[in-house]
């Protein structure tokens, strides 16, 4: 599958928001929607970017980061939301902040039906677990939403997920 080379500004806006929030550790599960952001984090000398084998590792890692005085963020795709559920017990019970930046699948123009069960239920299962969910649907609001979410997470010691609408990622027309 070829990645479209659309130039988009919002990944840089997220990066700027994370820097402004003093994020030092970024845990990520590789994801096409986060390509530019992962590259920016990996290239930043003040950020340690760690590639995970599964999303729940990132939740445990950022709990450790917080214990050691570092702020962190978890970059993932909505397909990994289910992988997180029990591990969220750690930050939720311990009142540790957790900032998750989640690119959505299974909604706007999805071509792969296997993505629908998790994508369509991501917001609900997060909320059922006690995660505060914030959405960004338009490119020009992404930076602000992420920064506001970081303030919420780090000031109130709570778990916040920013869901980035699949609409932001562009529509892949697989009918051709």
């Amino acid at each position, binding site marked *: 599958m070829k990645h479209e080379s659309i130039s988009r500004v919002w990944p840089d806006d997220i990066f700027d928001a994370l820097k402004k929030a003093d994020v*030092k*550790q970024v*845990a990520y599960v590789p994801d096409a929607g986060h390509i530019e952001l992962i590259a920016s984090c990996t290239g930043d000398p003040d950020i*340690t970017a*760690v*590639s*995970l*084998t*599964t999303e*729940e*590792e*990132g*939740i*445990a*890692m*950022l*709990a*450790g*980061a*917080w*214990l*050691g*005085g*570092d702020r*962190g963020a978890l970059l993932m795709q909505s397909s990994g939301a289910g992988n997180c559920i*029990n*591990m969220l*017990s*750690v930050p939720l*019970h*311990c*009142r*540790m902040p957790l900032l998750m930046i989640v690119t959505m699948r299974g909604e706007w123009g999805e071509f792969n039906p296997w993505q629908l069960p998790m994508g369509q239920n991501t917001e609900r299962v997060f909320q059922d677990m006690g995660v505060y969910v914030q959405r960004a649907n338009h490119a020009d609001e992404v930076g602000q939403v992420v920064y506001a979410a970081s303030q919420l997470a780090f000031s109130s010691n709570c778990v916040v997920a920013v869901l980035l609408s699949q609409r932001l990622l562009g529509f892949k027309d697989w009918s051709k």
Partner: protein
Amino acid sequence: MTDRKKGTLDRRYVMRTIVAQRGDTLMVTGLGSTTYDAGTVDHPNTFCLWGGMGAAAMTGLGLALAQPERRVLVMTGDGEALMGLGALATIGAQHPRNLAIAIIDNEHYSETGMQATHTQRGVSLGAVAQACGFAQSETIYTEAELEAMVPKLFGAEGPFFGVIKVNTQRYPMSIRVRDGAYLKDRFRENLLGAERAYY
């Protein structure tokens, strides 16, 4: 699988022996028996996980990255480690030099009725860690070997992986402090100071 060596070490002896030499090491312990063991030698520099099975190794990685000048030791059981096996690949790839992981391996799930774990059926966590690129990985069975390993837990180049085979002796659960928010605040305040811990 004939002639497999059995663990004879006592888990609480192992915990006491290691903790006696911890110095200012930051420790994370995993659910469940290892956390109970740690409760008998509680310390503000120890964060005990009472949940999130599979979290211990990665919690140690995040802590080790945040505190590169401090030694970080994760102590957890074989069952807990098996639930987060991918973490060993992530840690091997990240290669934190200040992190050590000690597995208290009794080859059983102690808290759920002593069912066998895969380590009883031939799976070697030490070999997994080695294959994942840990700087060093050792599996030990005796007091003498434990004595030789302890300095490595605190000083050998990381990531260091030590599998300590113990017997199946069970102890009453040591119900010490188990509120996670308190344990987190205690740990952070002790490490970072109150001003930074609560900013």
